[in-house]
């Protein structure tokens, strides 16, 4: 609203700020007056702080759960084969059932997350090694029925030879089911996922192993659960070790694994896995009737910790996609290094090629 009058002697009552230069501080109470340029150029700049990437559209429960269930199923199948071969019927039955249940649920989660669930079978209209999701769909198409036959023959108590063959076949495919999901998320432009592609598969199979070990400890009597207890340790070493390595190598891109909600989940998973995997080693020495209860609690803690890790990693990816710094800064550094190597000091030319 204009408050000034035009008179013969010039302007009267003109608002002093009409002469203001945009962005210049007038100094009143130290506050910056006037319009500020909305984007400052220079180091660490972005377009209004908006992310460079479009956010992952996957639901956390669906695809975070999918990652967890895939690991649980795959590692369960390996435990089942071991139990089958070493005559541990309860452990074998439980892990076979958990493999089938987990792979079934993971399929439900995957289909539920599709924008067009009725078109799920379009996944199988091509075979495409460049698409980890396509490879995974084929893998599950083979693995699911095999795990199903193993569990069904066991529960029905028929066809022992088929049961054994299916159990062993599922164990051969299981590790791939547990590790391919690492490629699935690493093969994206999401910085915290993509940059961690070297360690992610080890972390994922480790986390799958701790979950399956936890399930084995819950379901099987202590005299059968020895391998499950030791598997907890193997899984924890892989999961926590790979996770630590990854965070160290990623530098600033690892921040979402350390801070915020995702960081809290990752840390909780890490501590939970470490503590419960160690506890699993002594749980059979708990005296009296409480040993079984302790094993169940320990197994549950392993399963929960594994899930915390998965959801933490899933959310860390989303957090790293939401902040342009994680996309821009490593790329900027890479460019600068390349320019230094080339001995090219000029700033502008050839940026981004």
């Amino acid at each position, binding site marked *: 609203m204009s408050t000034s009058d035009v008179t013969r002697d010039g302007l009267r009552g003109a608002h002093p700020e009409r002469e203001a230069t*945009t962005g210049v501080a007038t100094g009143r109470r130290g506050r910056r007056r006037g319009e500020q*340029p909305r*984007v400052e*150029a220079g180091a660490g*700049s*972005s*377009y*209004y702080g*908006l992310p*460079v*990437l*479009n956010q*992952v*559209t996957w639901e956390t429960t669906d695809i975070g759960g999918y990652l967890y269930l895939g690991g649980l199923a795959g*590692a369960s199948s*390996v435990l089942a084969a*071991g139990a089958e*071969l*070493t*005559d541990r019927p309860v452990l074998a039955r439980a892990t076979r059932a958990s493999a089938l249940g987990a792979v079934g649920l993971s399929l439900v989660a995957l289909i539920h997350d*599709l*924008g067009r*669930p009725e*078109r799920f079978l*379009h*996944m199988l209209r091509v075979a*495409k090694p*460049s*698409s*980890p*999701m*396509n490879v995974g769909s084929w893998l599950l198409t083979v693995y699911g029925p095999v795990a199903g036959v193993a569990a069904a023959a066991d529960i029905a108590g028929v066809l022992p030879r088929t049961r054994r063959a299916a159990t062993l076949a599922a164990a051969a495919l*299981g*590790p*791939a089911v547990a590790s391919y999901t*690492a*490629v699935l998320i690493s*093969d*994206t*432009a*999401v910085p915290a996922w993509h940059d961690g*592609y*070297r360690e992610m*598969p080890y972390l994922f*199979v*480790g986390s799958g*192993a701790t979950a399956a070990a936890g399930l084995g400890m819950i379901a099987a009597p202590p005299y059968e659960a*020895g391998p499950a207890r*030791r*598997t907890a340790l193997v*899984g924890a070493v892989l999961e926590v070790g790979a996770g630590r390595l990854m965070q160290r190598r990623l530098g600033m891109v690892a921040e979402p694994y350390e801070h915020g909600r995702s960081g809290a989940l990752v840390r909780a998973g890490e501590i939970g896995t470490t503590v419960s995997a160690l506890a699993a080693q002594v749980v059979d020495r708990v005296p009296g009737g409480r040993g079984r209860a302790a094993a169940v609690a320990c197994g549950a803690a392993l399963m929960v910790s594994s899930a915390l890790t998965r959801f933490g990693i899933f959310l860390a*990816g989303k957090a790293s996609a939401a902040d*342009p710094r994680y996309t821009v800064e490593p*790329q*900027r550094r890479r*460019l600068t290094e390349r320019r230094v190597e080339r001995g090219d000091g000029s700033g*502008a030319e050839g*940026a*981004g*090629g």
Partner: protein
Amino acid sequence: MTIHPLPDPVVASGWTDAPPRMGFFTDTSVCIGCKACEVACKEWNAIPARGTEGSSDLAQDFTAMSMDNSMGLGADTWRHVAFIEQRKPLGIQEPGQFHGDDPSGSDVLALAAQGSGTPPSEAGMTPTTPGPAGEFRWLMASDVCKHCTHAACLDVCPTGSLFRTEFGTVVVQEDICNGCGYCVPACPYGVIDQRPEDGRAWKCTLCYDRISVGAEPACAKACPTDSIQFGPLDELRARADARLASMHENGVTDARLYGRDPDDGVGGDGAFFLLLDEPEVYGLPPDPVDTTRDLASMWRHAATAAVTVLAGIAVTFAGGSGRRSRR
């Protein structure tokens, strides 16, 4: 498994006798921020309206981001005009034209007869015409899908819905897409996205329907300053090189080409740009890399991890059977 066997994506995708690879050269130095491209794209492709941050209330379409109301590329924004206000000197824009009879001045009638399509090279002035340095500049740039030579969206699509056309462009087949959403985080530029009420992924098709019949894409057709230029990629690259050279000659040293280099992380963009500042200022990644470039290595790590866990669990069974160890 060779993922990128040939540098020519059209040949690599199995096309024979294909027409030349087509693309866009977006010269942001002449963009006036009119958003004709955004509007033409929406109209031609029948893209639903969408308010800020997904709200369908267009009255709330206010972002406080200069003149930007569409924020970025997505399922319902296939051309996006960015507005950047900077405290950086640029040539003063002198709007006065001499309208007299002086033969050295411009003939406004002749100019009018020529219509609005004055090529930048013949324009009396452009936003980058050098002059005394001002203290403020306003950058405008129309962003679009880059139609990458190595397109991660296409590589990761599990259904084969995304495909490479004979023009070297990357297009979603809407009758195939099952909305798995994999392409969304795969794109290193944040271009493709899922339309929530429809579930499928959408992005720029480089007007596949129009260019198939020899017409130019709607945005390029609508652009009044020829900031958006459409044509065979080779020609566009030559034109862009000439434009860059002339800008550097005229002292606009900030000018740089983005996505033009076939040796960059994505093998060069089918749609590339002339920018006046660092890419990240426009919301573009400074050194994007094809997401699937390391895929072979990823599979190798996954295979090793699988063998590791198999062996690791097997070892835990060493030491006999369950029954014998029963206490």
